[in-house]
């Protein structure tokens, strides 16, 4: 066999083998790079959803994503605020007025924040063939929003969310974000003329009970807690003492009248005690001085 006849005979085999090998290798490399992009997009979507759930703006979320996952992923972030799940059990407490409700309302609802990251993908090989690969990933994380802010925590479409979620805001920027005990107050209203309390009642009175005081400046700043002197709830202990005093005044009477002793004595003593008790209270339009007499 002459060398000239042998020379180059392996070239076609080599060309085929190298071609197949390179195709396989570049294909595998392409998949590896796509895998990298997918993992990158997954991480970026998760981070974006998590940060958006904390109430960050779109710009802040983008900046947060850019550092660990790159500008390409950050620029591909799309956020979508999703309403809470529908109420599965319809709640209509007021049997007389359907569509209205009493009893309670959620201030902070469990909403969601969806983030989708779409990147063009780094695909130098397949891309060169006109098949630019695109990867995308979506993640949903919980978010904190106050729906229907502005004194309307129930509002339109409470069950369906449709009306509520259009009017939502991050918790920390709404009027729900108030000091503790703001909504933990109580007062009683009554008609002083002894008639039914209706719109026709004139001169209606409002008296503040224990809880109403918690918005007063003298207990917000109390350095002590509890009901002891100087404590946040000290006034309630004072009230308790006055009530006990009222009972003692009534039941320890030594000058009972023969005709209707208990009633008469109660009549005398309780009026004085009630003057003290109601001196705690304010009138409807008056200043709040719940600690008067305490």
């Amino acid at each position, binding site marked *: 066999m002459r060398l000239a006849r042998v020379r180059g005979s392996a070239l076609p085999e080599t060309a085929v083998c190298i071609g197949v090998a390179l195709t396989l290798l570049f294909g595998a490399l392409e998949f590896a790079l796509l895998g990298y992009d997918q993992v990158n997009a997954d991480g970026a979507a998760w981070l974006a959803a998590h940060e958006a759930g904390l109430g960050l703006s779109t710009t802040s979320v983008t900046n947060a994503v850019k550092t660990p996952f790159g500008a390409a992923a950050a620029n591909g972030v799309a956020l979508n605020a999703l309403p809470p799940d529908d109420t599965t059990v319809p709640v209509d407490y007021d049997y007389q007025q359907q569509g209205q409700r009493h009893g309670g309302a959620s*201030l*902070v609802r469990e909403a969601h924040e969806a983030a989708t990251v779409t990147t063009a993908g780094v695909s130098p090989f397949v891309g060169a063939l006109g098949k630019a690969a695109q990867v995308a990933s979506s993640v949903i994380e919980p978010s904190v929003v106050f729906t229907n802010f502005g004194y309307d925590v129930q509002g339109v479409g409470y069950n369906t969310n449709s009306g509520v979620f259009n009017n939502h805001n991050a918790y920390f920027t709404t009027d729900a974000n108030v000091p503790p005990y703001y909504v933990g107050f109580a007062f009683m*209203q009554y008609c002083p003329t*002894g008639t*039914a309390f209706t719109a026709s009642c004139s001169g209606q009175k*409002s008296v503040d009970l224990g809880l109403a005081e918690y918005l007063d400046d003298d207990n917000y700043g109390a350095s002590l807690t509890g009901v002891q002197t100087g404590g946040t709830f000290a006034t309630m202990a004072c009230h308790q003492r006055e009530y006990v005093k009222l009972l003692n005044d009534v039941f320890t009477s030594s000058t009972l009248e023969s005709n209707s002793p*208990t009633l008469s004595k109660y009549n005398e003593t309780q009026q004085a005690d009630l003057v003290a008790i109601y001196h705690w209270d304010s009138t409807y339009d008056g200043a709040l001085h719940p600690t008067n007499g305490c």
Partner: protein
Amino acid sequence: MFSRHAQRGQVLPLYAFGMMSLLALCFFLFQYATTIRWQVRAQTAADAAAAAALSVQTLQWNQEMMALHAASVEEYRIRRLTQTLLLVAHYSGGCSATPSTSAGVCATDFATLQPQLVAAVKRYGDDIALLHQLSYPTAASQASDANTVVQALQANCGTPLGGDCAFDYTMTAYSQRSDMQAVSENPNEVMVGAGTIPAISANVEPARVEVVVCKDVKPIIPSILGLKLPTFRAIGRAAATTAMVTEEWLDPGTIVNPATNAVFLPKETEAPSRAVSAGAYDWYTLNFGGNNAVAYPSEDAYQLSSENDELSAYTGWWSTIQMQPFAGPLNEASISCAE
């Protein structure tokens, strides 16, 4: 010399190089995915720990609010009973009597109502005692409680009471949240502090906490060709705060269980009804009235109406919500990191 035999294996180095490169790429891809997985796991652990750290304060405040609510209802009952007893003592309020000869029915009513006042005052005393028991935590003790919870998560890891055993937990910051909205009047439209927002004691301010979890994650392959691969530090950092998430108010006799159509809490009648003819007012019934707040679609807001003598006793339930970390740049030297 050229021969077919001599040309065998020419592709092998290229193939081997390619395979090595591919394997290296796969390794780094896997390592990257592992890094992200650990980071997500760390953040999840931190989120849960931050929420748990404030559970003591939320539990404390929920119990406190419950006691306050009960005390308020009882105080309303006492006030109403005292008013009613005074009316009865005046032979008024609907009871019939001939004062010159006998107290008549008024005496009977008085005898019925009086023990109820005694019982109500006793219950009020119980409420106050309970409130006092619940109300001692200070801002400092609340911070200590939060740290205890975080340490308990570490100690009880792997159990339903614990956290993720892979991480070390550190409470890196605890303070009171002072970014609340200004409140210059109470919902009864009464100005407080002459319209100036009063300083609030730290004891009753919602807390915020920051928790960091950490683990040094070793690479799956410690070294390649003598090259030691770096350790990845997975850090999860999360913050949470307490917030009132639900508001409720009392409305006995009105709030109906949809399943049974029966009221959850009926109106109270302290003595047999003796409505006063004028206005058909019954001093012996404790209607409570409730806040009677309803949502009117046309108003897109609450609307309050008073249809009875009214007790407005709101209460709310506290829980934890997540928030952005607030303590500035993280000082890694201050945290513990699991290996």
